């Protein structure tokens, strides 16, 4: 098992077209993820901002947009600004809705050594993790 890769699936009882909107449109992303200033666009940089802090929390570049089927973007997060991971979304229309598979790769790039050198944590992050734990 590759422990540095995360794979999740979620079933949504809607068409792939509707599900696609939730993954790419700014107003919908803001409601479940973090808020971008604009809809995601192929080949464009994006940034997501924290709801409370207004800080930029995740950013990267949209690598692939194959409408209603596949979406990929590089994904950098605040504590490790120089290190980019990648997130791949796949949408499969199945009976009664759409199965979404999320694959987060590149976490192995963050070994202890590079962490020491590139460290640039700030105060927003530990709050974020603390919130996660409270769920």
């Amino acid at each position, binding site marked *: 098992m590759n422990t540095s890769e995360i794979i999740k699936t*979620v079933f*949504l009882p809607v068409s792939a077209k509707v599900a696609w909107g*939730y993954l790419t449109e700014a107003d919908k992303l803001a*409601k479940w*993820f973090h808020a971008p200033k604009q809809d995601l666009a192929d080949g464009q940089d994006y940034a997501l901002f924290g709801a409370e802090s207004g800080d930029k929390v995740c950013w990267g570049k949209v690598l692939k947009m194959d409408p209603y089927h596949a979406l990929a973007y590089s994904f950098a997060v605040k504590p490790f600004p120089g290190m980019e991971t990648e997130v791949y979304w796949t949408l499969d229309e199945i009976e009664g809705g759409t199965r979404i598979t999320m694959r987060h790769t590149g976490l192995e790039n963050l070994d202890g050594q590079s962490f*020491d050198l590139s460290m640039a944590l700030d105060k927003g992050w530990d709050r974020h993790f603390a919130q996660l734990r409270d769920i």
Partner: protein
Amino acid sequence: MKTDVAAFKALGDPTRQQIVALLAGKDMTIGQVVDHFDMTRAGVKKHMKLLEAGQLITVKAEGRERINSLNHEGFKSIMQWVAYFDQFWDDKLDALASLVEQEEQI
């Protein structure tokens, strides 16, 4: 898990990040660390205490001196952040599923 929060907290400050960077180079006494900052010994000591609480540094007595070193084990635990992202995505995808259910009136 509590330790990890303390570790993240410990790193959430530029001074403490600098102290970690210094200790990554070599072990130091508090006095040696203080020399690198425009800050009182008490101020530096406070930061060192937080780093110790986060288990990012260890303090050993050597004779009359107290030597501060980086605790590599502590950094290893912070690197288990794959686990955090695992939780992160579970949380986000749950939120997505609930939102879709709500908005699309299923």
